[in-house]
């Protein structure tokens, strides 16, 4: 590190010379030059990080009370709810925290999709984000199995059976995942271990995500590169305060869910102990898996359905190479912007049909929506990259900000 930046004296200076933690903090959380035009959609990265910490802290405390054994897992969760001091609060925070984490991360992803945050030079940053999403999905799925209710058990059965779709090796994979011939005690106990382990893997990938982010700094609503120091402001106090305010709003919503509707996003069937002899009448995954579940069910062939469902997530890895349009922000892309919002609505439609019974008109809707889902990435994006014409862009972030500000007063663009 640069010695000239080490201006602290006394004990902090002594430590910093040997272990530059203070320089590091100063660099990344204080002086860190950040585009001055970030809107509230840029809050969701820090919110996701804070939610991850909340999940890990509450998860560790829950693990101190939980027993991963099919005979007592359900009862041990009920003991947490009834006997452990504030156990109900602990569990509801963790349970709804999973939902909040996915809401935040999905908004974070849609933000990146709108403003082209995955484009050069942030491709690896984006791909690390997709890795985090995959790890989150695995962690959330295994966490949902732990209470060993009906939905836990049958969710585990259905999801692990996805792997049986693969020819020849499918059955061996499933037996291996189960550690037996059905979802049972060995399955529960390994899911618990992995559910505890994977969040720390997420922390590791988040650290890489941040390293990659700070290499080029945040993207911004204009998608323009930072050209001068006039385009940036220091992270502290401007964005610490903005993040802090956003955190307050987020925590109010989160707390409202925890205290007033803790089971709103869950399924009552999961308060029935697991019964390997009786499948619940209507089995659906947690809401954050519904769009992918809809794609799975839209396909009449088992293997194709499974492959398309995995592909729906994995296609995100290819995004930087599917959309090669040189303009990042959808603000300046008249056509992409419309396809983007259609994609957004389409994703919600997929989530909705995923929760509906797999019959009649719902299947048709799911099929149309699935086709658009993949078309958006594989057809529309590459075509727009080639043919979409855009107008003149503002000359810099500052120019864009100022033109917005003064357009109203003067009806004259400052940018051009």
């Amino acid at each position: 590190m640069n010695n000239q930046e080490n201006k602290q004296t006394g004990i902090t200076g002594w430590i910093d010379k040997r272990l530059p933690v203070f320089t590091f903090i100063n660099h990344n959380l204080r002086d860190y030059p950040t585009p001055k035009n970030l809107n509230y959609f840029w809050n969701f990265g820090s919110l996701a990080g804070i939610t991850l910490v909340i999940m890990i802290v509450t998860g560790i405390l829950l693990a101190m009370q939980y027993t991963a054994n099919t005979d007592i897992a359900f009862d041990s969760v009920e003991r947490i709810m009834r006997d452990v001091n504030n156990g109900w609060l602990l569990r509801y925070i963790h349970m709804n925290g999973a939902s909040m984490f996915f809401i935040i991360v999905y908004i974070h992803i849609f933000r990146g999709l709108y403003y082209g945050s995955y484009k050069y030079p942030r491709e690896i940053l984006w791909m690390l984000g997709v890795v985090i999403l995959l790890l989150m999905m695995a962690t959330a799925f295994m966490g949902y199995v732990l209470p060993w209710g009906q939905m836990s058990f049958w969710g585990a059965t259905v999801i692990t059976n996805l792997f049986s779709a693969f020819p020849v090796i499918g059955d061996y994979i499933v037996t291996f995942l189960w550690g037996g011939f059905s979802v049972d005690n060995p399955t529960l106990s390994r899911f618990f271990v992995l559910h505890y382990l994977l969040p720390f893997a997420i922390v590791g990938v988040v650290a890489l995500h941040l390293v990659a982010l700070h290499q080029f700094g945040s993207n911004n609503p204009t998608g323009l590169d930072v050209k001068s120091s006039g385009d940036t402001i220091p992270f502290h106090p401007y964005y610490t305060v903005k993040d802090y305010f956003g955190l307050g709003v987020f925590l109010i919503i989160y707390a409202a869910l925890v205290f007033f509707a803790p089971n709103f996003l869950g399924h009552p069937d999961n308060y029935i102990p697991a019964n390997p002899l009786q499948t619940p009448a209507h089995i659906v995954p947690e809401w954050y898996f519904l769009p992918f579940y809809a794609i799975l069910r839209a396909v009449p062939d088992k293997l194709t359905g499974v492959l398309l469902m995995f592909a729906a997530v994995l296609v995100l890895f290819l995004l930087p190479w599917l959309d090669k349009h040189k303009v990042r922000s959808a603000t300046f892309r008249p056509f992409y912007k419309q396809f983007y919002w259609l994609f957004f609505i389409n994703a919600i439609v997929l989530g909705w049909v995923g929760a509906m019974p797999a019959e009649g008109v719902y299947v048709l809707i799911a099929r149309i929506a699935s086709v658009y889902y993949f078309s958006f990435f594989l057809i529309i994006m590459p075509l727009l990259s080639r043919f979409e014409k855009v107008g003149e862009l503002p000359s810099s972030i500052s120019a864009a900000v100022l033109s917005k500000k003064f357009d109203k007063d003067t009806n004259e663009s400052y940018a051009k």
Partner: protein
Amino acid sequence: MKELNTNTKNKPTPVDEEKRDFLFITTAGLAIAGGGAFAWSMIDTMNPSKDVLALSTTEVDLSPLEEGQSLTVMWRGKPIFIRHRSESEISSADNVSVDDLPHKETDESRVKNPKWLVVVGVCSHLGCVPLGQKVGDTKGEYGGWFCPCHGSHYDTSGRIRKGPAPLNLEIPPYEFVSDDIIRIG
């Protein structure tokens, strides 16, 4: 247009220091109070839960215990030593000059009924369970209990007489529900 721009640059709005202090203190204060309440409610989950607290009393029927016999029962996960003391054991516990003891307690203050001694069977040195409950166990030099871990000797009143332990065996809270039944805890 240009004028407007320079105007805002050259005349920054004056900072209302008092207002800033107020905002800073209320914001930080609320964050600390909220964070503290949250942190405490989370840490509190590690304290004994209701089902653990529900196990904190034990009733023991003393009637099968003959004079000179001992009984060990569990209370809060710890052994409780109950000894039906003989006359000679009571008198040997009584005939000690309290001033000579490391931990000065009379035998009288350690029993509810001199026939029955009820103590927590955990050595006050480092938590081992002393010997002396079973027939054939060594009872130490004072006829009470002997801790094999580091050689502490307890007398027939459960008082430390020799060895590294600093305190007498603890007396648990208990009461006689009837003549023959005690409730510990």
